[in-house]
């Protein structure tokens, strides 16, 4: 780790002010990606702004419209929430399969979406359910939030405060994990979302994406068979020693089929 200033922010505004004034300052939420990055000397921030001490950012609230989860809510809290499980069971299920117990007890929703790792699970839930991201400045639709590989619509002085997930009909997430890291090689969230059927794919490409052809087929007939023969192109898919682009493309279909089957 290189030396840096450590500041524990007392409010979202204070945190936003620090990172807004300094391009080299960085927010720290659960630290599940950033602490290892620092330890390996792969980042040299001027200031690390810990937002873990800000009150009121880790709430989970359920109403008739859906579930609103605070940015600092741990994955384990989401997974264990009976309210989430009752309102959107697929969301609680997804959270219960992120990382391992240590990661789930430290990692946060806000940290995950702001980092936008191409193999993270939460982006599939946000896009798959048509969620909205609340920041200290505005509301951003999930479809606009995730813009590219580790890229989001967030501005330098913008801090995620919560995410609202609308209630859905049938929904499920299926992940084919990387055997080593257990991140998603391909993860598919299929849902009868509030604004129509959504099929969101993580892990396969540089950023979460939707599969329109599958959405249309499922809107017409919600069954695993509807997507079983819909192939996605391997062009632009991620490739590594664990999965070729062709294999990832194939797994999108398999996981979509299985997600629909799991959703019932």
């Amino acid at each position: 780790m290189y030396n840096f200033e450590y500041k524990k922010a007392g409010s979202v505004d204070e945190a936003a002010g620090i990172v807004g004034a300094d391009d080299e300052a960085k927010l720290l939420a659960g630290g599940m990606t950033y602490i290892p990055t620092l330890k390996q000397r792969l980042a040299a921030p001027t200031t690390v702004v810990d937002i873990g001490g800000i009150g009121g950012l880790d709430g989970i609230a359920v109403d008739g419209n859906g579930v609103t989860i605070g940015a600092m809510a741990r994955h384990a809290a989401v997974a264990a929430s009976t309210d989430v499980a009752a309102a959107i069971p697929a969301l609680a299920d997804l959270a219960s399969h992120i990382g391992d117990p240590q990661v789930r007890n430290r990692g946060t929703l806000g940290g995950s979406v702001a980092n936008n790792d191409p193999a993270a699970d939460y982006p599939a839930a946000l896009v798959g359910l048509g969620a909205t991201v609340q920041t200290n400045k505005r509301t951003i639709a999930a479809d606009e939030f995730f813009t590219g590989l580790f890229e989001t619509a967030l501005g330098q002085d913008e801090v995620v405060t919560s995410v609202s997930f609308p209630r859905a009909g049938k929904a499920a997430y299926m992940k084919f994990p990387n055997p080593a890291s257990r991140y998603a090689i391909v993860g598919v969230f299929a849902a009868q979302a509030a604004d129509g059927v959504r099929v969101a794919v993580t892990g396969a490409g540089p950023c979460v994406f939707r599969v329109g052809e599958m959405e249309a087929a499922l809107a017409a007939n919600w069954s695993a068979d509807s997507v079983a023969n819909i192939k996605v192109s391997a062009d632009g898919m991620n490739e590594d020693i664990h999965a070729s682009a062709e294999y990832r493309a194939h797994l999108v279909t398999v996981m979509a089929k299985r997600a629909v089957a799991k959703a019932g």
Partner: protein
Amino acid sequence: MTEQGIGAAVARREDRRFVTGQGHYTDDINRRGQTHACFVRSPHAHATLNGVDTEAAGAMPGVRGIFVGEDMAEVGPLICGWAITDVNGEPHRAPPHPALAIGKVNFVGDAVAVVIADTLEQAKDAAAAVEVDYGILDAVVDPATAAADGQIQIHETAPGNLSYEWAIGDRAAIDAAFEGAAHVTSLEFANNRLVPNAMEPRACIAEYEDGTGDYTLYLTSQNPHVHRLVMSAFHGLAPEHKLRVVAPDVGGGFGSKIFIYAEEVVLTWASRHVGRPIKWTAERTESFLTDCHGRDHVTEAELALDGDGKFLAMRVNTIANMGAYLSTFASAVPTYLYATLLAGQYTTGGIYCNVKAVFTNTVPVDAYRGAGRPEAAYVVERLVEAAAAETGRDPAELRKINFVPSDAFPYETPVVMQYDCGDFSGSMDQALDLAGYSGFQARRAESKAGGKLRGIGFSSYIEACGVAPSAAVGSLGAGVGLWESANVRFNPTGNVQLFTGCHSHGQGHETAFAQIVADKLGVPYEQVEVIHGDSAKIPFGMGTYGSRSAAVGGSAIVKAADKVIEKGRKIAAHALEASEDDIEFAGGNFTVTGTDKAMNIAEVAFTAYVPHNYPEGLEPGLDETAFYDPLNFSFPAGTHICEVEIDPETGSVSIEKYAAVDDFGVLINPLIVEGQVHGGIGQGVGQAMLEHAVYDGDGQLISGSYMDYTMPRADDVPSYDVGFNGVPSPLNPLGVKGCGEAGAIAAPAAVMNAVHDALREVGVSHIEMPATPLRVWQAIQDAA
């Protein structure tokens, strides 16, 4: 068997401190005035060193010293301790391996310089400021083509990137046997390269005391005296009597902590130059890059069968990747620990094996759990299983008709081993029962109905353990003897300290060895303490590797205990006013035959230290040391049966059942043995399905972290069905054979034979380890 003697399933006493976080590992030690080392490592696989500028770094805060290869010219290079004689009668080529590179770097991670500073952060900062001018060269990475004509040369002294070409067997006779065969099975495959991944990374602290001229080296070693010997005799760092080597609690070795590495040589040398103790602990990335890797063979293998399925002959050509330099025991692994096991459990008529050991721009490869024997078992058992499938025979039956019969021992194999004893068919039968073999077809049909492919695979492995008779290994090129030592020391109050030359780094010696002492001397188990790992305390010992500690170290303990009993008999006879010949020893009591006159061994010990009423001329004290040199290797063997189910849609392989029946001879502690079997199978499953050290064409290690290198997790392995069929070895006083490596030796072939069996149905005939989902899926696509 007593309650806590030999054969008792005593819970491991060392686990209390380990599971409560109270172990004392090297990194837990901090010495007064301690400084920290950071190594500047090559980011290139192959490059000339055109200059190292340390000026700016040397001026940075806290820096005590920066050293490069030329500074250490007085220190001898790292050695290979086993000399192979090649097919031309020439010694193997072992190019110089300076602890810090001189003139050239040969793998990513090769140490170029060391920075020593007051804090680790300061050392890292200064290391980053060391400027190295590299002249980047193309890298040699693929062992299969490393020795090809026109290939880039890594070492001037190893033309063709060849360390040696070595062979065993009569090639012409074997070729003739193949001519007359009814069937020949031919396979080509790789034995995948593995990273050892001990839980505790390598670490060392070197300290020099100017007042006495004494060096102390704390480090992660499986064999502290071997470290001391090599560092004294070959590196010239300090004479043996002025160098103390301490290997405290060590968190796993799997072979990787046998070897003498650059870091400990550099720190020991530098500790005198900076006048401060120096600590270095590998970060996980350094472990991936610089711990010696394992396996990495490319093999063509053939098996000739007659019309009845009897094995006539075997012909094997192997290219073994040595990495950039020859590590401490690297040359022995693909030769005497590999080709000599190619007879397996079978009466194969003749065997020829040719091995080319090649250099590549990768980290050195050396012994890793099983060391040569997993590679041999994989060759034999893949061939046998393929032969069964090709000739339409049941794989269990084909094995049985070729097994060395139980009445044929001692049995001389065509590859210079003499098996002492065994019951190969008995172990097979027991394994078939445990595996529920008769119900397999029904289970396969059930899987098929669910869209899955099910397969079953066998592995009837044998290994040579209990390394090793010193004269025998000496004649084959070993630079050391491979005996073991033990010192049984009674204290006046009757408790016992056992000092062993073995080193426990996960094996449970502190428990099992105490059981041996308790059993042999009749002392309560709780009153026996086992001490190991400190050259200032223990007698010279050869350490722990090669499943040797029970067979060799345990036998030394028995010999020392026997000496204690013989001396105690004299003391008791005198005290009981009887003739020595009339004293019987049993259950801790010396008894005058036919009477109730007796003396407990604790009383004898007290008398030995307070010799008021004592035999004339007998030395006081009860403290006996023994050295044991084994008569032969021991030969653990058994049959493992694995059953897998494959999801053809994703390529995922799931192990549904795993049955293992092993002959380890006498079991000292069945609980520990079972744990060793579980751990070994876990690593074998890792090799077969998950683990792979992958270098790209530039020699960069792609699987250089746990994000990409797949270690087996609990949900990757099944609940094992483990059984034993022990035939006591007649060649050592305990009748033991060794159990530490068996699982890792047997499992890869069992798993891969099951995977091949499952995939045969969809037309796949060949798949390499690790059988990852990607590979399995791709193989199914390619066959379709």
